């Protein structure tokens, strides 16, 4: 078990920059727009985002760990490749959901003053956004996550899988805390507008990436 913890932690620490990069493109625009000037006030948002990621990891580790430990030995290579494909598809679906969430968020901010469907817009401007962003970006098809999935698949152990992903989460989380200082940039409305544009661009891009990924 210690070996699994160590593996997960090292994977998280060594590839955490990529992990932050994958999440940053979704979370950074949010922080630019919604972040407060004091770093500790942003911690709540970051923790909420990280909680979303943790739940996503645990749920994913439980499902894949369960399938891996119960059926892997009796699966034919074809079924194995189907499950690998399913995992990839699931991560692309999550990418699409995260992109849509970000797109709606960006659009709702852009049309906030226009009186366009206010109740709908206000619902999407709630503080729950970071949690859901964390939940869906957690299962991003980024290289470190896919390495974790490959290791998880060979573990044949549900608890081991969960421990691996918790350790991976802790390793990558080290890189998340500096995000609290991002909001120092949003001293004026201009930066917030730039943040919204980044959100719009990245959501459209990853929506496209997700759709193309699903098509293949």
């Amino acid at each position, binding site marked *: 078990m210690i070996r699994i913890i160590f593996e997960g932690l090292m994977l998280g620490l060594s590839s955490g920059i990529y992990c932050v990069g994958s999440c940053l493109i979704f979370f950074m625009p949010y922080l630019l727009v919604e972040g407060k000037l004091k770093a500790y006030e942003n911690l709540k948002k970051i923790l909420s985002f990280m909680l979303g990621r943790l739940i996503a990891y645990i749920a994913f580790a439980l499902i894949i760990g369960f399938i891996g430990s119960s059926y892997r030995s009796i699966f034919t290579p074809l079924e194995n490749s189907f499950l690998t494909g399913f995992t990839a598809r699931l991560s692309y679906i999550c990418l699409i959901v995260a992109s849509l969430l970000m797109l709606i968020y960006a659009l709702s901010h852009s049309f906030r003053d226009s009186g366009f469907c206010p109740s709908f817009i206000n619902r999407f401007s709630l503080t729950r956004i970071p949690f859901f962003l964390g939940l869906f970006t957690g299962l991003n098809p980024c290289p470190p996550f896919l390495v974790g999935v490959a290791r998880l698949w060979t573990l044949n152990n549900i608890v081991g899988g969960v421990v691996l992903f918790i350790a991976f989460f802790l390793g990558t989380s080290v890189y998340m805390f500096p995000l609290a200082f991002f909001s120092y940039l949003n001293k004026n409305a201009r930066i917030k507008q730039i943040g919204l544009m980044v959100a719009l661009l*990245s959501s459209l891009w990853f929506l496209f990436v997700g759709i193309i990924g699903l098509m293949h």
Partner: protein
Amino acid sequence: MLKKPLCISAVLFISLFIFLSILSFISAGHDRALFYAKLAWSLLVSYLGFCIYRNGSISKYRSILFILIAFFFFLEFKFFRFISFTKTTIPPYCHIAQAPTLLNFLYSQFLAITSGEWRVWGVLTLGFLWLLIIFTIGQGICSWVCFYGGIDEACSKIAKNPLIKLKIPRLWRDFPIAFLIFLLSVSFLQGLPVFCSWFCPFKMTEAFWDSDAVIRIVQAALFWSVLAGFVIILPILTKKRTFCSFICPFGALVSICGKVSPYKVTINKEKCIPCGKCQDACPVFAIENKSSDEYKISLFCNRCGKCIDVCPVDAINILSKQTGQQIDTRDIFIFLSLLVTGVISGSFVPRVFLQLIGLK
């Protein structure tokens, strides 16, 4: 317009020519034909500098040089296969591609340091050369040196008057910064030059096209819309450099880094009669309304000198940030810009010229 006396213009012309000639001599090596071609190009650059000083009109002569460089650049590096040059040269490092992949470069620098593979540094050294230029002439690089900018500048010169008067909200002028942040993150994440593959309207290579048919259609659609819309049609209709204003990620990077440059275009409030001519003339939407009767130069100013030329009361000038003195600051900036332009363009224009006349 601030004209210089003949003797001062001549001194500046000779100094510039001497500098460029020495560099031509060093870079041409034993190739005599190339040396003479470089010398001729240095003479032309210096002569255009003389015209700027003597006539006091920055934008007109800068524009001639800028468009000429772009013409030669595209002839050599983009259309060589149609003209069938016998020998192609190595293109100058693409600075536009450098901006959105800056994080990738920094990461490869890190890998080079940790692995001891010093040869990887070559590309990065060129990157630092561009950064050095940014730190000296700042955003001036976009209006003096950039061999891509001359294309939309040339298109913006086609119509005599703007067919459409484009008024854009300040929000859209900030789009390149958002685009740069997006590209930096996505390029780093995917380990690919996303801008080159998807958005660059200047690529004339098939290397970036994806093998998948659907993706290739989207790539082609983006390529043609940016090329036709922002590099050709909009500049012709509006007489503005729309690619540089709304798309170019390098322009966005330069506008941020260029703040450290000692040169800055400023409006003298006491002299200014808020006629708005500078705002209409600015090709990159860099003059903003501070209030109804006051204008301000934004960080996107390219130091092209057009506002200086059109100002009826000479209220706009290039100042040194440190001293705020007008004396010679503008002349130093023009001299430096011409020197950098002469050096960068001198690395490919003379060779193209020799190839055109069949000497290479």
